[in-house]
């Protein structure tokens, strides 16, 4: 060891740049390690509470398992079970139908953001009012809308008062309407959240761009369409992906308002998984259904990126 060290020292004397190179590489490796140290706590938590449950849950989807006996590998049996169940297909269809809410919620949120993005007196009150549904507990929202949708509820009372309908409408008891009634609640809950994101994006658009367009003689509509919308595209992409995933994963509204009924017409993918796992204690089938819903989520998110990602020339 000693002669080797001696050779190294001698060589370092002859080539001084080598002597400086060692600390530099150490600095480099320290620089490489430091971010991981900062990330470590978050990564540890993610590994513990996200990655591990996802991996373990995915494995359990291929097993026969109740919480008291060890899992037994059964291959694709749980997925075959799903294919046999028409309620699962209704759930998937409803989850996809729920995506109808995405353009509605984005359009509504952009319109609201544009409306509240001015300096009128009392505008902050409106912004806060639109945000209230976001911070209201979903249980409260579900019960409140349940009352409003009731046969003797506010909505039927108004419609009957205006002579638009003669008999009360079964908003939640008619299997042809129930899913759309629940979708309205999701829309109402989500508008404020996306409005805030769009509002932040609108306020970040440099004023001189619109000023320049105005000097060029662009109309209000042209300024909105040619300046504001392109500048909003990254936010539109973000909000669309977020709302698409939320729509695919909708659960609470269904759980509180309809419990999947009537005639399974409001089952969604995640509610099906919940129902199988928590009510029927069939954890492997619940996990298999969750995996299928996850695949759909990934596919829909990919489509969003594919078609909405801004293209820079």
């Amino acid at each position, binding site marked *: 060891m000693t002669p080797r060290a001696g050779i190294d020292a001698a060589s370092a004397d002859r080539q001084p740049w080598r002597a400086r190179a060692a600390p530099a590489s150490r600095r480099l490796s320290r620089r490489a390690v430091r971010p991981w140290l900062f990330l470590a706590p978050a990564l540890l938590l993610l590994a513990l509470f996200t990655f591990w449950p996802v991996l373990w849950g995915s494995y359990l989807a291929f097993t026969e398992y109740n919480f008291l006996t060890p899992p037994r590998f059964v291959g694709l049996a749980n997925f075959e079970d799903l294919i046999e169940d028409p309620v699962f297909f209704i759930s998937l269809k409803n989850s996809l139908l729920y995506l109808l809410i995405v353009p509605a919620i984005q359009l509504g949120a952009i319109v609201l953001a544009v409306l509240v993005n001015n300096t009128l007196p009392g505008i902050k009150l409106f912004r806060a009012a639109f945000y209230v549904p976001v911070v209201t507990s979903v249980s409260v929202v579900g019960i409140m809308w349940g009352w409003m949708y009731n046969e003797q509820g506010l909505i039927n009372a108004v419609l009957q008062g205006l002579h638009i309908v003669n008999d009360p409408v079964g908003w939640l008891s008619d*299997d042809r309407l129930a899913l759309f009634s629940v979708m309205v609640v999701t829309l109402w809950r989500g508008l404020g959240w996306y409005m805030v994101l769009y509002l932040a994006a609108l306020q970040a658009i440099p004023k001189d761009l619109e000023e320049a367009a105005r000097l060029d003689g662009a109309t209000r509509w042209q300024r909105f369409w040619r300046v504001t919308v392109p500048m909003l595209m990254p936010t539109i992409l973000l909000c669309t992906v977020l709302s698409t995933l939320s729509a695919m994963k909708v659960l609470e509204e269904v759980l509180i308002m309809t419990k999947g009924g009537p005639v399974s017409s409001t089952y969604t993918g995640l509610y099906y998984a919940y129902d199988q796992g928590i009510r029927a204690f069939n954890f492997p089938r619940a996990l298999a259904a969750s995996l299928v819903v996850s695949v759909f989520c990934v596919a829909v998110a990919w489509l969003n990126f594919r078609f909405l990602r801004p293209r820079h020339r």
Partner: protein
Amino acid sequence: MSRAAALLRLIGMLLLAAVTVCGCARTSAADKVHIEFWTMSLKPKFTPYFKALVAQYEASHPDVELEWVDVPWDTLQTKLTAAIVAGSAPALVQLNVPWAYDYALYGALRPIDDLLGADRSAYTEGAIADLTFNGHVYGFPHYNSVNVMAYNTALFRSAGITRVPTTRDEQLAVASQIKARTGQYGFSPALGKIAGLMLEEGLPLVENGKAVFNSPAHVAFVTKLADAYKAGGLLKDKLFSEDNYPASIDAYKSGRMAMLEAPPSALTRVRDDAADIYAVTDVAPVPIGARGIAAGGWLFHFAMPKGTDGAVAREAAAFAKFLTNDVNQLAFAKLAGAFPTSRKAVADPHFQRLRTDAGAYDKAMALGAQRMDVVRTLYVSGVPGFERLNKRLQDAVEAAIIGRKDVKTALDDAAAFWNGKLAPLARPTQAAIRP
């Protein structure tokens, strides 16, 4: 001594004292047997009742420390399952019979035969039978329920009905007549639990390992329900919900529905919220089906999760017996408008003597007590994967009643699905009504 040094010494002494006190407290708490018990949706109405019992029991048992946790009914299964999996289940948990049966089936509950001992005879036979699965008792019976039929005499008069219905067929016919003559709903049967409804009517689900709920008798029964629905006789709000009780009581209180099948306690809500409706309310027994069992039996009890052993099990059993003794059951039953499951409490004059100025609620309690001998908690057992099969039956009946499918076709389809699932089973299955 400087002021700073004196201050430091004072802080040191205080810290020492705090550590000593904490240490003593910890030692004393560690010596006690900790019993955590869960109840189902009993807060806030019964908070004073349980707090008083806890204080009384802890005073007489200084070696026991009680922790009362009340869990909303709709989250109890989720929380209990998670707690059992995590090994942190309470020593006692209040359950209904079907849930207890499911947990017992999975081996998640501990049989309590050894802990019940001679006290078994203190409870009614029906209650003990409800909690006996595979020859073992799985809970300390607490309180029970039975349905009565409250009816709006004013709506009956307006509809020209002079005789109270005594069978389900008559009740459905009366419901349609009420709608036709008064514009109000007749009643709200528990269609969200169609299997139970069929079994009450003496219509079996499975015989000799095959689904038989597409027989002419079943088809006729569902057709009558569908006819009443079409005639507008059945309340539409939450009609197919597993729990249609809140919507039913709201409709009855507002005078929109003529008959309410519910436990007597429902009438206290009518009395408190709608005095005008209560004034025209009378009660009658609910129609009894072919099995001769009164509807509405729903026994609550304290079960012991698996893993509760040793001193904790012994102390928890003693506390469960205290919670469900004659005196405490009678007090709870009076407070809740429920029926006790202890023999002495059932025989109490409170349930047996009717005052001369008795209102609908008192009449309902007396009527209910008379039915305690024929009330049982009804549910289906012995069918593997019943949740899924029941869902198929439930969907078929819903589709038939609202007219999306022909009754016979809907029941045939569901029966074919059941038979496809039941056929591969090694032994023939009987969809037995429990008990």
